[in-house]
């Protein structure tokens, strides 16, 4: 599909290596985000981010208000968690969460009043330190799926010169349309978030990166960005090729700026920081209202969902309540997936609570998820051809079968793998290549921890 780009929209600086053309299946793109009635009960895990889990700050029987902080920790790599409804704490106990881990969680019985914590006030910010503190207190984690604490991402290492902010609206996973809806519905929040970031950081350029299969989002954002001439043309739109995994951080930095984040390096090492478009828009709202991250948008779709939709849901809502809000199952589900179909987690149970990180809930009927018959590897090399990190999964598979030498696996670049799933996706022999990579990474980690 050839799309004519509006005036001023930039083209990518470099071509991404590898990648796969996954079917987009973004059937919910035109479904406006709908708020749903908060469920009778929410379960709020103390770990909804990459890093250290929070300690619960409440006990059974306590009354909590919406937006009240109910979990925090002194660890740097973390983000506090907040109550998403007002009500009474019913339990503080480990609960099975998305991904299968048991995490201490606070169960709140909703009193239906949705009373907000009076403590939730717009933060007073004088300098970057105040800003980072406010970002931490907001509980913001990367809303694109990985859940990296936003304040930690923005605290650049000593001496790093970060000149480029990339606002990631690629949304390259199939089915997902929450970032797209954010671009269309909350365009001004996105620009507002960028403005506040520009106030406390000296970015030379801010690039909002959207895949070119979302022309409406590009159009809207470009119009707003080019109307804000008070800061020159610092904020620019870039249309990227629609190719999975375009939205992966390293891939994004390379295509947008041409810079490469090498093994073991951070985006700040090449002067970049990448933030999800939803995270940036949330920042603008938080700075205005002081209301922390207690709800988020989620795409609920898939062949077994009766009425696929984009919903605004409170954090801690059980997956089953989201499905009910979409008219329930249209047929018996074969598989439930939280996140995109390429990197998401399959659920054992629809009662699992959804967190800040979760941008999609997908339910599939059996037929389309049929597992490919596993055959012998024919060394066709497609896994290596599509790997965005230039790895050769076929060699990892061969090594894991034979020597299992951690040192060799490390040399092959095991730790560079981001588990995007492109290799497993294309493998004609139906090999579980991503699992091989995870196994290789485990072996290398064992070596590094020695």
């Amino acid at each position, binding site marked *: 599909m050839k799309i004519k780009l509006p005036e001023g929209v930039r083209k990518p600086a470099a071509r991404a290596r590898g990648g796969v053309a996954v079917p987009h299946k973004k059937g919910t793109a035109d479904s406006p985000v709908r708020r749903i009635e908060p469920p009778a009960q929410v379960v709020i895990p103390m770990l909804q981010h990459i890093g250290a889990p929070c300690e619960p700050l409440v006990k059974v029987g306590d009354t909590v208000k919406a937006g009240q902080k109910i979990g925090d920790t002194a660890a740097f790599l973390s983000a506090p968690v907040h109550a998403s409804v007002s009500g009474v704490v019913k339990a503080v106990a480990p609960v099975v969460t998305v991904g299968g881990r048991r995490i201490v969680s606070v169960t709140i019985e909703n009193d239906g009043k949705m009373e907000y914590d009076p403590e939730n006030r717009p933060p007073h910010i004088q300098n970057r330190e105040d800003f980072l503190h406010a970002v931490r207190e907001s509980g913001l984690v990367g809303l694109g799926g990985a859940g990296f604490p936003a304040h930690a991402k923005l605290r650049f290492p000593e001496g790093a010169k970060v000149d480029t902010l990339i606002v990631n609206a690629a949304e390259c996973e199939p089915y997902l349309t929450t970032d797209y809806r954010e671009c269309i519905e909350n365009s001004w929040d996105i620009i507002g978030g960028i403005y506040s970031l520009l106030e406390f950081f000296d970015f030379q350029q801010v690039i909002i990166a959207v895949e070119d299969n979302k022309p409406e989002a590009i159009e809207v954002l470009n119009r707003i960005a080019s109307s804000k001439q008070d800061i020159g043309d610092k904020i620019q739109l870039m249309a990227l090729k629609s190719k999975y995994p375009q939205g992966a951080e390293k891939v994004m930095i390379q295509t947008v700026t041409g810079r490469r984040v090498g*093994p073991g390096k951070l985006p700040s090492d090449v002067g970049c920081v990448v933030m999800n478009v939803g995270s940036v828009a949330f920042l603008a709202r938080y700075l205005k209202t002081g209301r922390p991250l207690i709800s988020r948008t989620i795409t609920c779709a898939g062949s077994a969902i009766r009425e696929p939709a984009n919903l605004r849901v409170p954090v801690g809502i059980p997956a089953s309540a989201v499905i009910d809000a979409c008219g329930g199952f249209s047929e018996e589900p074969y598989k*439930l997936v939280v996140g995109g179909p390429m990197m998401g987690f399959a659920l054992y149970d629809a009662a699992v609570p959804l967190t800040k990180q979760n941008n999609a809930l997908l339910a599939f009927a059996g037929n389309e998820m049929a597992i490919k018959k596993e055959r012998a590897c024919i060394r066709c090399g497609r896994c290596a051809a599509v790997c965005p990190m*230039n790895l050769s999964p076929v*060699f990892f598979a061969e090594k894991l079968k034979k020597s299992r030498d951690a040192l060799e696996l490390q040399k092959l670049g095991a730790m560079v793998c981001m588990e995007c799933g492109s290799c497993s996706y294309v493998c004609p022999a139906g090999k579980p290549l991503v699992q091989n990579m995870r196994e290789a990474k485990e072996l290398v980690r064992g070596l590094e921890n020695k």
Partner: protein
Amino acid sequence: MKKLMVTASPHVKSGDTVTGIMLDVIIALIPALIAAIRIFGPRALLVVVVSVASCVLTEYISRKIMKRENTIGDLSAVVTGILLAYNLPANIPLWMVVFGAVAAIAVVKQMFGGLGQNFVNPAITGRIVLLVSFSTAMTTFPAPLAWTGSTDALTTATPLAALSQIDLGGDIAAQMASASLPTLPQLFFGFIGGSLGEVCTVALLIGGLYLWARRVISPAIPLSFIGTVALIMLIASKGNLTFMLYELMSGGLILGAVFMATDYATGPVSRSGKILFGIGCGILTAVIRLFSNLPEGVSYAIMIMNIVTPLIDKITTPKPFGYVKEKKQKEAA
């Protein structure tokens, strides 16, 4: 609710399958089959059918004996069967075909673990086994169109045999004119002596283009292989273009470069590895053709490069994204 299926990500997969790839290769081989039937008659088809049937049956029986899963459904034995037949004269005794098929599938493929595990190409090795066992039958080729009765000669030499008689130190053009060589169009359309599937250059190229268009093969190996042979032949003949074209279009070069050197299991994975592999095949083919007393060297060249493949893979493993050499890293610091 029934129990939910839980697997690791990704939860969607492409439609590509091993069987689909093999089917594409089979489709790509059909033009050459049609040409072979036209040129050598129904006997060519019979050789192909016997070869395919023996390969599939051998695969089935070997898997059964080894108490392993039946794999004839992946169609790789069919591909081996067709390729083996393409490397044989159309008038070869059928029991020899069976012998070659058993060697290719039972010994070369299954004894080393089956599909993807063999370290040399089964069809090529099958051909080599037959060549060393029955050299007369393997080098007596029916004359093109002899089956229609339109020619007097029943058998013919391959153009390669004639080419190998040429003294490259002397006047090449004059020697080629006096030698009994087919014309270039005859070469291109395959009306020459040779193995039944290797003669028709145009049919093989159509198959190769199909495989490229379907992204089953990349042009890296065919181009580097054929290009290297072309370059060396040009140098050896002091720039005689006609001699070079005759070398490219006679013998098994096109068949080997497009369909056998590109075998995944026995070739390198990376692009640079593939180019290196192709160049190696090209050099070996040219050296054998020019300096040994064998008229043809494509099979030996590919087999030798098959054996070197693990080494090529090792030295051409791509570096991870953004990797900087340690030396450069130090310089930058």
